[in-house]
Protein backbone atom coordinates (compact mmCIF):
# COMPACT_ATOMS: atom_id res chain seq x y z
CA UNK A 1 0.00 0.00 0.00
CA UNK A 2 1.35 3.42 -0.95
CA UNK A 3 2.06 5.71 2.00
CA UNK A 4 0.93 9.30 1.58
CA UNK A 5 3.83 10.96 3.34
CA UNK A 6 2.31 14.45 3.22
CA UNK A 7 -0.91 13.41 4.97
CA UNK A 8 0.24 10.44 6.99
CA UNK A 9 -1.51 11.62 10.14
CA UNK A 10 -5.16 12.54 10.48
CA UNK A 11 -5.51 15.89 12.23
CA UNK A 12 -8.90 16.99 13.52
CA UNK A 13 -8.97 20.33 15.32
CA UNK A 14 -11.89 21.36 17.52
CA UNK A 15 -12.74 24.10 20.01
CA UNK A 16 -14.07 24.02 23.54
CA UNK A 17 -16.45 25.71 23.86
CA UNK A 18 -17.46 25.71 20.21
CA UNK A 19 -17.97 29.49 20.36
CA UNK A 20 -15.44 31.79 22.02
CA UNK A 21 -16.21 34.85 24.12
CA UNK A 22 -14.09 37.95 24.88
CA UNK A 23 -12.25 37.63 28.19
CA UNK A 24 -13.10 33.94 28.51
CA UNK A 25 -10.57 31.14 28.15
CA UNK A 26 -11.26 28.47 25.59
CA UNK A 27 -9.31 25.53 24.33
CA UNK A 28 -8.07 24.24 21.01
CA UNK A 29 -7.91 20.47 20.85
CA UNK A 30 -6.04 18.81 18.01
CA UNK A 31 -6.86 15.12 17.71
CA UNK A 32 -4.00 13.35 16.00
CA UNK A 33 -4.57 9.87 14.63
CA UNK A 34 -1.48 7.83 13.86
CA UNK A 35 -1.95 4.92 11.43
CA UNK A 36 -2.25 1.50 13.07
CA UNK A 37 1.09 -0.06 13.94
CA UNK A 38 2.88 3.25 13.63
CA UNK A 39 4.11 5.85 16.05
CA UNK A 40 5.52 9.36 16.15
CA UNK A 41 8.15 10.60 18.54
CA UNK A 42 6.76 12.32 21.62
CA UNK A 43 7.34 15.98 22.44
CA UNK A 44 10.23 14.83 24.64
CA UNK A 45 12.01 11.94 22.92
CA UNK A 46 14.26 9.65 24.90
CA UNK A 47 17.27 10.07 22.60
CA UNK A 48 18.92 13.23 21.34
CA UNK A 49 18.90 12.01 17.74
CA UNK A 50 15.11 11.67 17.66
CA UNK A 51 12.92 14.47 16.37
CA UNK A 52 10.28 15.74 18.82
CA UNK A 53 6.65 16.29 17.93
CA UNK A 54 5.86 19.99 18.06
CA UNK A 55 2.63 21.89 17.53
CA UNK A 56 3.06 25.41 16.17
CA UNK A 57 0.21 27.93 15.91
CA UNK A 58 0.27 31.04 13.75
CA UNK A 59 -0.21 34.27 15.73
CA UNK A 60 -3.70 35.70 15.46
CA UNK A 61 -5.19 39.03 16.53
CA UNK A 62 -7.23 39.04 19.77
CA UNK A 63 -6.38 35.43 20.68
CA UNK A 64 -3.40 34.46 22.80
CA UNK A 65 -2.14 30.91 23.20
CA UNK A 66 -1.36 29.28 26.52
CA UNK A 67 1.26 26.57 27.05
CA UNK A 68 0.75 23.63 24.73
CA UNK A 69 -0.20 20.46 26.58
CA UNK A 70 0.93 17.22 25.03
CA UNK A 71 -0.37 13.88 26.29
CA UNK A 72 1.79 11.52 28.32
CA UNK A 73 4.01 9.51 26.02
CA UNK A 74 3.88 5.76 25.80
CA UNK A 75 7.08 4.05 26.81
CA UNK A 76 7.96 1.51 24.18
CA UNK A 77 10.82 -0.94 23.79
CA UNK A 78 12.33 -1.61 20.40
CA UNK A 79 14.76 -4.36 19.55
CA UNK A 80 17.29 -1.94 18.02
CA UNK A 81 17.96 0.19 21.07
CA UNK A 82 18.39 -0.44 24.77
CA UNK A 83 16.74 2.89 25.52
CA UNK A 84 13.02 2.79 26.25
CA UNK A 85 11.59 5.26 23.75
CA UNK A 86 8.82 7.74 24.47
CA UNK A 87 6.36 7.80 21.60
CA UNK A 88 2.78 8.65 20.68
CA UNK A 89 0.58 6.09 18.95
CA UNK A 90 -3.10 5.49 18.18
CA UNK A 91 -5.07 8.73 18.69
CA UNK A 92 -3.77 11.48 20.93
CA UNK A 93 -5.03 14.93 21.84
CA UNK A 94 -2.87 18.02 22.00
CA UNK A 95 -4.49 20.87 23.88
CA UNK A 96 -3.84 24.60 23.78
CA UNK A 97 -5.55 27.17 26.04
CA UNK A 98 -6.98 30.06 24.02
CA UNK A 99 -7.12 33.41 25.73
CA UNK A 100 -9.54 35.74 23.99
CA UNK A 101 -8.84 39.39 24.70
CA UNK A 102 -11.57 41.43 26.42
CA UNK A 103 -11.73 43.87 23.54
CA UNK A 104 -12.09 41.20 20.85
CA UNK A 105 -14.81 42.14 18.36
CA UNK A 106 -17.51 39.71 17.34
CA UNK A 107 -16.17 37.97 14.27
CA UNK A 108 -14.98 34.69 12.84
CA UNK A 109 -11.25 34.10 12.69
CA UNK A 110 -9.24 31.21 11.36
CA UNK A 111 -6.58 29.56 13.49
CA UNK A 112 -3.80 28.02 11.42
CA UNK A 113 -1.42 25.46 12.84
CA UNK A 114 1.27 23.00 11.92
CA UNK A 115 2.24 19.73 13.50
CA UNK A 116 5.93 18.93 13.11
CA UNK A 117 6.73 15.27 13.65
CA UNK A 118 8.76 12.29 12.60
CA UNK A 119 6.97 8.99 12.41
CA UNK A 120 7.56 5.33 11.77
CA UNK A 121 5.34 2.58 10.41
CA UNK A 122 5.66 -0.93 11.80
CA UNK A 123 8.54 -1.57 9.41
CA UNK A 124 10.10 1.73 8.28
CA UNK A 125 10.67 5.24 9.48
CA UNK A 126 9.44 8.19 7.47
CA UNK A 127 11.04 11.59 6.91
CA UNK A 128 10.09 14.48 9.18
CA UNK A 129 6.89 16.14 8.10
CA UNK A 130 5.05 19.40 8.76
CA UNK A 131 1.34 18.79 8.47
CA UNK A 132 -0.94 21.81 8.43
CA UNK A 133 -4.47 22.25 9.75
CA UNK A 134 -6.90 25.10 10.33
CA UNK A 135 -10.13 25.75 12.17
CA UNK A 136 -12.59 28.64 12.16
CA UNK A 137 -13.27 30.18 15.54
CA UNK A 138 -16.36 32.27 16.08
CA UNK A 139 -16.07 35.04 18.67
CA UNK A 140 -19.40 36.27 20.00
CA UNK A 141 -19.95 39.16 22.43
Amino acid at each position, binding site marked *: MHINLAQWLRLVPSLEPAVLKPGVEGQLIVAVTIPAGGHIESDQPAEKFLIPTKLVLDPIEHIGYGPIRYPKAIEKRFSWTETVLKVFSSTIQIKVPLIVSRDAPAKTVTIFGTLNYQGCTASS*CLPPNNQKFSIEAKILP
Partner: protein
Amino acid sequence: MSKLIAKYNVGDVVDDFSLPMLDSTTAKLSDFRGKVLFLVFTATWCPYCGAEAPYLEKEIWQKYKDKGVQVLVVDVKESNQVVKEFRDRYGWTLPVVVDETGEVALQFAPKKEGLPPEIAILNSHFILDKTGKIVFREFFALETFDARLSAIIHKLDKILAQG
Protein backbone atom coordinates in the same frame (compact mmCIF):
# COMPACT_ATOMS: atom_id res chain seq x y z
CA MET B 1 15.12 -8.99 3.13
CA SER B 2 17.95 -9.97 0.79
CA LYS B 3 15.25 -11.26 -1.58
CA LEU B 4 14.13 -7.71 -2.30
CA ILE B 5 14.54 -6.67 -5.91
CA ALA B 6 17.27 -4.12 -6.57
CA LYS B 7 19.56 -3.22 -9.43
CA TYR B 8 22.65 -4.57 -7.74
CA ASN B 9 22.99 -8.04 -6.31
CA VAL B 10 25.89 -9.81 -4.65
CA GLY B 11 28.43 -10.57 -7.37
CA ASP B 12 27.66 -7.46 -9.43
CA VAL B 13 30.29 -4.84 -10.12
CA VAL B 14 28.94 -1.40 -9.27
CA ASP B 15 29.01 1.31 -11.94
CA ASP B 16 31.22 4.22 -11.09
CA PHE B 17 29.62 7.31 -9.59
CA SER B 18 30.83 10.58 -8.14
CA LEU B 19 29.32 12.66 -5.35
CA PRO B 20 30.38 15.77 -3.43
CA MET B 21 32.00 15.28 -0.07
CA LEU B 22 31.27 17.57 2.86
CA ASP B 23 34.42 19.58 2.19
CA SER B 24 33.20 20.26 -1.38
CA THR B 25 35.72 17.96 -3.03
CA THR B 26 34.35 15.11 -5.09
CA ALA B 27 34.65 11.42 -4.35
CA LYS B 28 34.43 8.81 -7.08
CA LEU B 29 33.65 5.23 -6.33
CA SER B 30 36.59 4.22 -8.51
CA ASP B 31 38.91 6.20 -6.21
CA PHE B 32 38.52 3.37 -3.73
CA ARG B 33 39.35 0.45 -6.02
CA GLY B 34 42.08 -1.62 -4.43
CA LYS B 35 40.47 -1.36 -1.01
CA VAL B 36 37.58 -3.18 0.57
CA LEU B 37 34.75 -0.63 0.57
CA PHE B 38 31.98 -0.47 3.14
CA LEU B 39 29.16 1.62 1.74
CA VAL B 40 26.29 2.76 3.96
CA PHE B 41 23.25 4.87 3.11
CA THR B 42 21.95 7.22 5.74
CA ALA B 43 19.87 10.32 6.55
CA THR B 44 20.14 12.60 9.55
CA TRP B 45 16.44 12.34 10.44
CA CYS B 46 16.36 8.55 10.41
CA PRO B 47 16.23 7.09 13.95
CA TYR B 48 18.02 3.89 12.97
CA CYS B 49 20.78 5.91 11.31
CA GLY B 50 21.21 7.94 14.49
CA ALA B 51 21.43 4.76 16.53
CA GLU B 52 24.07 3.35 14.21
CA ALA B 53 26.11 6.55 13.82
CA PRO B 54 28.46 6.16 16.84
CA TYR B 55 29.24 2.55 15.93
CA LEU B 56 30.08 3.46 12.34
CA GLU B 57 32.84 5.73 13.58
CA LYS B 58 34.03 3.76 16.60
CA GLU B 59 33.62 0.13 15.58
CA ILE B 60 34.10 0.27 11.84
CA TRP B 61 36.06 3.33 10.72
CA GLN B 62 38.48 3.58 13.63
CA LYS B 63 39.10 -0.17 13.81
CA TYR B 64 39.33 -0.99 10.11
CA LYS B 65 40.73 2.07 8.33
CA ASP B 66 44.29 0.84 8.81
CA LYS B 67 43.40 -2.66 7.69
CA GLY B 68 42.60 -1.77 4.09
CA VAL B 69 38.93 -1.00 4.60
CA GLN B 70 37.44 2.22 3.27
CA VAL B 71 34.15 3.45 4.73
CA LEU B 72 31.92 5.69 2.65
CA VAL B 73 28.70 7.09 4.08
CA VAL B 74 26.19 8.28 1.50
CA ASP B 75 23.68 10.74 2.92
CA VAL B 76 20.47 10.70 0.92
CA LYS B 77 18.47 13.73 -0.16
CA GLU B 78 19.64 16.26 2.39
CA SER B 79 21.65 19.44 2.26
CA ASN B 80 25.36 19.66 2.91
CA GLN B 81 24.79 21.87 5.97
CA VAL B 82 22.37 19.46 7.66
CA VAL B 83 24.79 16.59 7.11
CA LYS B 84 27.70 18.61 8.52
CA GLU B 85 25.75 19.17 11.73
CA PHE B 86 25.05 15.45 11.98
CA ARG B 87 28.74 14.64 11.36
CA ASP B 88 29.78 17.08 14.09
CA ARG B 89 27.19 15.76 16.54
CA TYR B 90 28.68 12.28 16.33
CA GLY B 91 32.28 13.36 15.93
CA TRP B 92 32.54 11.55 12.63
CA THR B 93 35.93 11.59 10.98
CA LEU B 94 34.80 9.04 8.40
CA PRO B 95 34.20 10.17 4.81
CA VAL B 96 30.69 11.31 3.93
CA VAL B 97 29.26 12.13 0.52
CA VAL B 98 25.98 13.90 -0.08
CA ASP B 99 23.56 12.47 -2.62
CA GLU B 100 21.33 15.51 -2.60
CA THR B 101 19.13 14.42 -5.51
CA GLY B 102 18.95 10.79 -4.45
CA GLU B 103 20.20 9.71 -7.87
CA VAL B 104 22.86 7.33 -6.58
CA ALA B 105 20.59 5.99 -3.84
CA LEU B 106 18.05 5.14 -6.52
CA GLN B 107 20.60 2.83 -8.16
CA PHE B 108 21.07 0.85 -4.96
CA ALA B 109 17.58 1.00 -3.46
CA PRO B 110 15.44 -2.10 -3.08
CA LYS B 111 11.85 -2.03 -4.24
CA LYS B 112 9.79 -1.82 -1.07
CA GLU B 113 6.06 -1.53 -1.46
CA GLY B 114 4.71 1.91 -0.66
CA LEU B 115 8.10 3.47 0.02
CA PRO B 116 10.05 5.82 -2.24
CA PRO B 117 13.60 4.63 -2.99
CA GLU B 118 15.24 7.37 -0.92
CA ILE B 119 13.58 5.91 2.15
CA ALA B 120 13.83 2.25 1.18
CA ILE B 121 17.62 2.53 0.85
CA LEU B 122 18.28 3.94 4.34
CA ASN B 123 20.37 1.82 6.68
CA SER B 124 21.39 -0.41 3.80
CA HIS B 125 24.94 -1.73 3.86
CA PHE B 126 27.14 -2.93 1.03
CA ILE B 127 30.64 -4.35 1.10
CA LEU B 128 32.57 -4.21 -2.17
CA ASP B 129 35.79 -6.10 -2.68
CA LYS B 130 38.97 -4.57 -4.08
CA THR B 131 37.64 -4.90 -7.64
CA GLY B 132 34.38 -3.10 -6.90
CA LYS B 133 32.30 -6.27 -6.79
CA ILE B 134 29.53 -6.54 -4.19
CA VAL B 135 30.36 -9.30 -1.73
CA PHE B 136 27.79 -8.41 0.92
CA ARG B 137 24.45 -6.62 0.78
CA GLU B 138 22.05 -5.98 3.62
CA PHE B 139 18.85 -3.98 3.31
CA PHE B 140 17.19 -2.56 6.39
CA ALA B 141 14.73 -4.82 8.18
CA LEU B 142 13.49 -3.86 11.61
CA GLU B 143 13.46 -7.44 12.86
CA THR B 144 17.16 -7.95 12.11
CA PHE B 145 18.50 -4.42 12.52
CA ASP B 146 21.54 -4.20 14.75
CA ALA B 147 22.90 -0.72 15.39
CA ARG B 148 26.17 -2.25 16.61
CA LEU B 149 26.80 -3.58 13.09
CA SER B 150 27.78 -7.05 14.31
CA ALA B 151 27.06 -8.75 10.97
CA ILE B 152 29.17 -6.18 9.13
CA ILE B 153 32.09 -6.59 11.51
CA HIS B 154 31.90 -10.36 11.17
CA LYS B 155 31.81 -10.08 7.38
CA LEU B 156 34.72 -7.61 7.24
CA ASP B 157 36.83 -9.89 9.43
CA LYS B 158 36.03 -12.79 7.13
CA ILE B 159 36.91 -10.84 3.97
CA LEU B 160 40.15 -9.55 5.43
CA ALA B 161 41.12 -13.06 6.58
CA GLN B 162 40.67 -14.28 3.00
CA GLY B 163 43.07 -11.60 1.81
